[in-house]
């Protein structure tokens, strides 16, 4: 009954090629955009912005980036934390060196810098695969964190080695620094997320995405049918790095405001983003959103239920949280290895037939 093409006539090629060919999907997409842009900014408060929505938006960008690399191109990466750090430190250096330039361009440029670094560390992928590549990107993770801790130029020689985001404005409204309004930072991140998601969606539907998937499914066969593995793999690293860099820059400048590289961008961050795309669904843009939402919301929900509603001691709730998150990950991998995105696909299939399954 739902999600049917019936009655939705396409009369042009562009209509046939659109992102959401099914009407109900399209309507849902526009409704989500309207809610996100026109309703939430008027209802948001500091707690919702800083505890739930901002991390969700920023991790979604990171998850989309990693999903392009791991889910679409099949190149396992454990360097996400390090690449986010590149984005954050690039943003910091740009913000402090060129204070007159708008922060919007700084964030885009930090994505560019990260894309470059990511391509550099992607070079070994031309020779090694699978676990060995994972180890190579793990080296990137440790090297980058060490670098930002070791070379004082990156943190402008501050005594503590911390980087702090100075105040920057967009159209006169502060988006970084302490005097920000919740709606401003939220909208700034949302704009980036929407741009990134649209780019990622269209890249993966087009030639570039098909090349990546060909490499992922079988690289030798892909090479035989004319896919250049050098170009395909390096573009995947580059695009992925661009998104991860943007998320790192936003994570530092808008969300945390002050960052210490070892603590904020350590190996745990790499694993967290990897878990997001595994739980959400490899090779799916929707999955990146679902995974990020799941791993951002779950701890908050558990805390609200455990501490605020049931009044349990905080340490017991914190330990329970580890147990529950770990248990759910295992459960998910057993029951639905393709993640939340696959659950959604199955639900859609069922909805098409409902209420007459035969």
């Amino acid at each position, binding site marked *: 009954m739902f999600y049917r093409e019936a009655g939705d006539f396409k009369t042009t090629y562009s209509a046939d090629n659109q992102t959401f060919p099914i009407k109900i999907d399209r309507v849902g997409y526009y409704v989500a955009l309207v809610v996100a842009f026109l309703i939430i900014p008027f209802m948001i*408060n*500091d*707690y*919702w912005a*800083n*505890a739930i929505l901002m*991390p969700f938006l920023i991790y979604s960008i990171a998850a989309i980036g990693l999903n392009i690399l791991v889910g679409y191109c099949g190149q396992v990466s454990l360097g996400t934390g390090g690449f986010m750090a590149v984005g954050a430190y690039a943003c910091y250096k740009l913000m402090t060196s060129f204070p007159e330039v708008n922060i919007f361009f700084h964030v885009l440029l930090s994505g560019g810098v990260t894309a470059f670094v990511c391509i550099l560390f992607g070079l070994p992928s031309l020779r090694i695969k699978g676990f060995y590549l994972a180890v190579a990107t793990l080296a990137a993770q440790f090297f980058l964190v060490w670098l930002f*801790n070791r070379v004082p130029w990156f943190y402008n020689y501050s*005594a*503590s*080695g*911390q980087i*702090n985001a*100075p*105040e920057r404005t967009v159209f006169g409204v502060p988006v970084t*620094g*302490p*005097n920000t309004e919740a709606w401003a930072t939220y909208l700034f991140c949302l704009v980036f997320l929407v741009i990134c998601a649209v780019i990622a969606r269209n890249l993966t539907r087009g030639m570039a995405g098909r090349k990546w998937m060909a490499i992922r499914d079988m690289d030798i066969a892909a090479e035989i049918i004319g896919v250049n593995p050098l170009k395909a793999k390096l573009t995947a690293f580059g695009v992925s790095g661009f998104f991860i860099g943007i998320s790192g820059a936003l994570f530092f400048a808008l*969300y*945390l*405001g*002050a*960052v*210490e590289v*070892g*603590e*904020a961008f*350590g190996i745990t961050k790499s694993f967290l983003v990897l878990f997001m795309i595994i739980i959400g669904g490899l090779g799916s843009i929707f999955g990146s959103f679902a995974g990020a939402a799941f791993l951002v*919301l779950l701890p*908050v*929900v558990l*805390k*609200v*239920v455990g*501490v*605020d*509603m049931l009044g349990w*001691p*905080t*340490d017991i*709730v*914190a*330990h329970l949280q*580890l147990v529950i998150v770990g248990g759910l990950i295992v459960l998910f991998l057993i029951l639905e290895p393709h993640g939340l995105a696959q659950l959604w696909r199955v639900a859609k299939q069922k909805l098409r037939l409902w209420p007459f399954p035969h």
Partner: protein
Amino acid sequence: MKTKFATMAVAAVMAAAPAMADLVFPSLSYRTGPYAAGGIPFADGYADYFTLLNERDGGIGGVPTRLLECETGYNTEKGVECYESTKGEGALVYQPLSTGITYQLIPKTTADGIPMHTMGYGRTSAANGKVFSHTFNYPGTYWNGASGAINYLLDENGGDLNGHKIALVYHNSAYGKEPIRTLEELQKKHGFELSLLPVDHPGQEQKSQWLQIRREKPDTVLMWGWGVMNQVAIQEAANIRFPMENFIGIWWSGAEHDVLSAGAKANGYKALTFHNVGRDFPIFEDIQKHVVDTGKAAGAGDQVGNVLYNRGMYAAMLAAEAAKTAQEIHGTADITPAMMRDGMEALSITEDKMAGLGMPNFGPSFDVSCENHGGPGLVGVTQWDADSQTWSLISDFAETDMEVIGALIAEDSNAYASENNIEMSCN
């Protein structure tokens, strides 16, 4: 979606019903993770003191206190979430017990008008109240600690440290890097040699650092460690047979759990402190009677009298005294965060006051002023006795080199002020 609505409903209820009837003290504690060993006793001490006030005196100035505990795991992201979720409840003062979270909260608390007290940690230059209006770090800072350690060494070595070799083993983070600049300045002044040995989070792997110490044979090792790093360092020092009496830790590296695992070999290890240690204070009888015996002790209730428990209790005492001062200044028992800030700025701790609270000679006497949020910076030295398993104070609370530290504080805080366009207050 259901859970989403449930959390939304809970958040709405929390936002709609700010309990104005009591004084709210949030405790951003960490009872999990690699730093829990230090976080638990501090959080217990902090909670127990407020419980004691409620049970014995009916709160502060007749208004009961309410402790909001939020688990951060020493993680800055969770720290932000805890801050945002508690600030709406009328939180009077934040004490995050983490230098990383402190750096994050300094601009946020200033913008929200809530004071923050970072007792013996955080950003040292926040001692300059002209720049950091809402951040306090009395009674002492890391730079006092660094200078205090050097002064102690000067005393031990007859006032001359020329050619003396000092190695600093530090947690490779904002926290551990704090003393470096002060030590470098003092190095110029006193002519000792300084070598820096960073240890990465969480600090379980220190073989190479201690190998280097074994090779370089420094006369003294200073340590800025926290959490599991302390135990490992003391064990490694024992393994290379480094003389423990020449090994001095900062106040965050000198609690029972840090030295117990190395057993008898840790005997003689020293640590700095800015408050007294041990259980020989009348207040512990009250805590035993009103808190422990009534089953209201925080956590497992087994930390009473430990070094970090005392520190948590001391932090709570200073917060409660500041709240009392605020009540007197503003003539109302139901104070706001802005009033609390005034109270902290006018706080005066005297020996009589501490004796009256059952904590005679527990810490230094000091007055906070608008310009000086850092207190007098008096530093004492404690030593571990492995036989009796006790820490004891082996020196007086001594002055530190405020000439050097004051200049550094002015330099760093002015740089912060110009970076963030802050106008100097206190005029």
